[in-house]
C-alpha cells in the first residue's frame, strides 16, 4: 500500500541538505483546493527544511473515508496528516492525536464554538478546523423586488412568498417556474437539509449531545410535515432525487425563486455564463414558527487531523498548525472563497473585498448546528441513513411524520443496541 501511495503522490523538494523528516499529507485531490493545499505545504516545507509528500486520495467522500479506515485500522503510518470531513471526527477519533495543546486559549476563542465542539471527542480535540461550510438560502432578489416582497424570515413566509411568485410567474408565461429547491435525494444531503428544518423548529439534533434519542417530538414532526407539503406544490416532485448540483441546475437556469445550498454555489450562480448572474442574494435560512424557532444551518467543512501512527507527530502537528493558521486561512479565503474558521476574518477588508457575501455567512456559521456525529461516533453513518430514509418516506408521502418519527426512534434504539453509543 505504501509503495502505491508513494507512487501516486509527488514528492515536493525542499533543500535536501536541511531536510529532516518527510511527512505524508492527504488533502483535497482535485481543482483549486488541491493546488492551495500543495502551495501551503510547500511553503511550510521551505520554512522548516522538511519534506511533504502529497497523497492523492479518492475525491468521493465515502471512498476516502473507507480508505482512511482501512489504513488506520491497520495502524499504518502511511499518512501523517489527514483532511477529514466534519462528520468524521467521531468515527476516526480512536486513531487521531489530541491537538488541544496546539491551540491556546486566545486561538480557541477566535474559532467558531460549534466547530470546536464538533471536533472534540471525549474531551480530546482530534481535528483542527480548516475551512467551514453551512447551509444558506439563495434568493432571487430581482423577483422579490418585482413583487414587493421581503426576504422570508420564517419557513411559513418562505412557503407563501414562493407560492405567490410561482403562481404570478407562471401566469405571466414562465411555465417551468418553481418556488423552492433543496436536496431531497435519500443521501447525506437530506440529513443535512432535514436537520435544518427540525432544528430551526427547536426540534433538537436527532440525538442529543448526551446520547439521548430525541427525534420523536412534535416540533420535529411539524417541521417534516411542512417540508412534505412543499413537494409537488412549490418544489418539483423531482426534488426527491435532487442533490446539490441538481438543485443548482434548476436555480441557476432561472427556474426557482429560492434554493437551499452550500456557499460553494455563490461564485457559480454569479459566473459569466449564469442566466441569474447579479440577480441573487444570500440570506440566512428561515427560522421555524412559534416559540423556540431560530435560524439554523447545518455545519459542513473540512478539518486537518494527525494520525496517531505517524512516525513524526511533532512535525505533523506543526504542519497542521501552519496550514490552519490565520495567514493561510486568509490566503485561501481570498483565492478560492474557502470559508475561514477564524471568526474575525469575516470582517477583514481584504477578504470581504474578494467575497462580499461573507458578511451574511458569518451569521450562518454562528447559528451552525452540527450533525450528531461526535456523540454517535462509529454508528453515525447508520444513524444518518436511518434518518434520511425516514425523512424521504415523509417527503414522498409514504408515511405520516409522527408515525414515521416514532418508528425512527425505535430503529435508532436498535442501532445503538439499547446501550451507550
Amino acid at each position, binding site marked *: 500500500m505504501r509503495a502505491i501511495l508513494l507512487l501516486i503522490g509527488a514528492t515536493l523538494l525542499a533543500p535536501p541538505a536541511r531536510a529532516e523528516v518527510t511527512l505524508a499529507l492527504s488533502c483535497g485531490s482535485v481543482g483549486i483546493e488541491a493546488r492551495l493545499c500543495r502551495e501551503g505545504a510547500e511553503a511550510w516545507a521551505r520554512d522548516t527544511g522538511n519534506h511533504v509528500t502529497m497523497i492523492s486520495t479518492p475525491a468521493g467522500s465515502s471512498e476516502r473515508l473507507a480508505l482512511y479506515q482501512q489504513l488506520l485500522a491497520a495502524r499504518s503510518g502511511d499518512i501523517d496528516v489527514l483532511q477529514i470531513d466534519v462528520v468524521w471526527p467521531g468515527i476516526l477519533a480512536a486513531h487521531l492525536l489530541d491537538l488541544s495543546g496546539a491551540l491556546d486559549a486566545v486561538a480557541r476563542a477566535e474559532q467558531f464554538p460549534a466547530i470546536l465542539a464538533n471536533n472534540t471527542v471525549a474531551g480530546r480535540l482530534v481535528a483542527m478546523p480548516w475551512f467551514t461550510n453551512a447551509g444558506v438560502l439563495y434568493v432571487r432578489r430581482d423577483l422579490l423586488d418585482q413583487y414587493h416582497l421581503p426576504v422570508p424570515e420564517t419557513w411559513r413566509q418562505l412557503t407563501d412568498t414562493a407560492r405567490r411568485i410561482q403562481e404570478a410567474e407562471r401566469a405571466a408565461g414562465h411555465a417551468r417556474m418553481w418556488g423552492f429547491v433543496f436536496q431531497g435525494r*435519500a443521501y447525506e444531503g437530506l440529513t443535512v437539509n432535514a436537520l435544518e428544518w427540525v432544528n430551526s423548529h427547536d426540534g433538537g439534533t436527532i440525538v442529543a449531545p448526551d446520547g439521548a434519542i430525541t427525534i420523536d417530538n412534535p416540533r420535529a414532526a411539524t417541521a417534516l410535515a411542512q417540508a412534505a407539503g412543499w413537494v409537488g406544490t412549490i418544489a418539483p416532485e*423531482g426534488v426527491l432525487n435532487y442533490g446539490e448540483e441538481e438543485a443548482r441546475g434548476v436555480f441557476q437556469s432561472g427556474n426557482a425563486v429560492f434554493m437551499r445550498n452550500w456557499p460553494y454555489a455563490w461564485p457559480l450562480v454569479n459566473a459569466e455564463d449564469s442566466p441569474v448572474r447579479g440577480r441573487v442574494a444570500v440570506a440566512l435560512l428561515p427560522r421555524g414558527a412559534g416559540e423556540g424557532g431560530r435560524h439554523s444551518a447545518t455545519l459542513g467543512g473540512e478539518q486537518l487531523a494527525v494520525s496517531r501512527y505517524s512516525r513524526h507527530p511533532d512535525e505533523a502537528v506543526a504542519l497542521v498548525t501552519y496550514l490552519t493558521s490565520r495567514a493561510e486561512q486568509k490566503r485561501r479565503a481570498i483565492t478560492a472563497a474557502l470559508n475561514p474558521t477564524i471568526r474575525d476574518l469575516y470582517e477583514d477588508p481584504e477578504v470581504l473585498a474578494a467575497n462580499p457575501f461573507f458578511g451574511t455567512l458569518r451569521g450562518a456559521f454562528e447559528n451552525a448546528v452540527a450533525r450528531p456525529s461526535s456523540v454517535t461516533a462509529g454508528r453515525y453513518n447508520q444513524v444518518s*441513513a436511518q434518518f434520511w430514509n425516514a425523512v424521504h418516506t415523509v417527503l414522498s408521502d409514504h408515511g405520516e411524520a409522527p408515525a414515521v418519527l416514532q418508528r425512527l426512534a425505535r430503529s435508532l434504539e436498535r442501532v445503538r443496541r439499547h446501550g451507550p453509543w
Partner: protein
Amino acid sequence: MVAPAARGLSALALERRRAAWLFLVPMVVTVLLVAGWPLARTIWFSLTDARLDDTAAPAFIGLENYAWLIQDPDWWNAVRNTVSFAIVSVSLETLLGLVIALALNERMRGRGLLRAAMLIPWAIPTVVSAQMWGWMLHDQVGVVNEALLALGVIARPLAFTADPDLALWAVVAVDVWKTTPFMALLILAALQLLPGEIYEAAEIDGLGPVGRFFRLTLPLIRPALMVAVIFRALDALRVFDLMYVLTGNSAATASMSVYARQHLVDFQDVGFGSAAATGLFLVIAAATVLLVTLGRVRLGAAEDGR
C-alpha cells in the same frame, strides 16, 4: 459407486476405493481452503462484536447479532425484495426464454445470426448494462421516458429508479432483459436434442400443435428446464450489482447482499454484517434444498406417468 459396507469387497475393490479417496484429497483440501474457510470465518465473525473501526480484539457475544437481525424491519424488507425479485424475474425469464427458444428452433433464414445477436445482453458485464439502463431510465434525460411520452403512454416523466413504487420493477425489467438469452439458450439446447420421429408419430395420431407442445415438448425438456431454473433462482437470490448500480443503497430495492454489504463496509459492523451474510447463506441453502427436492419429485412423477 462403492458399496456401503466394506465387508465382502475384494482386495481389488478396496484398493480402488483407497485410490479414489486419494484422488479426491486435493479437491477436498482446495474446497475447504477457498470455500469452507471463508464461510467458517464469516460464521465465527457473526458470533462476535467485531468492528472495522475498533482496534480492540473482537469478543464472543453468542447469537446476539442474529437477535438484532431478526428484529430489523430493514432486513425483512431486504428478504422480501430479494424473494420477490427472484420469483418474478426467474418466472418471466423462463417464460420468455421458452418462447424465444421455440421460435429459434424453427428452421428459418438467418437463424445463426439471430442466435448470436440474442447473446449480446448476456455478454455485457452487469455493471455496464446496469449503468447503461440507469441512463436510459433517467427521469430527465432518459430515452425510455422520451419514448413513452412521445407515444402518449405517460403524461409526465417517471423517475423509474428513484420512485420507491417503481424501482424494484425497473430492476426486474433490466434483469429480464439481461438474463432471458441465457434461459433461451439452455432451453434451445434441450429442444435440439428432441427426436423428430415422435413428433411425426404424434402428427399421424392427429395431435395438434398445442397438444404436441404440452404433451411432448414440455415433459421432454423438463429436466433441462429445471436445471436452468435452479441455476437462475440461486443466482437471483444473491443479486447485488444490478441493485447497487441502479439504485444504490435505497431501501426500496435493497437485496440481502446489498444489506449485508452496507453493514460490513458503510457501517463498519463486521459482526452484524457477517450475521446478515450468514442469513443470506441460510436462505440460499434452504431455497436450494427446496428447488432440488421439488425438481426431483416432479421429474420422478413425469417418469412414472410415461
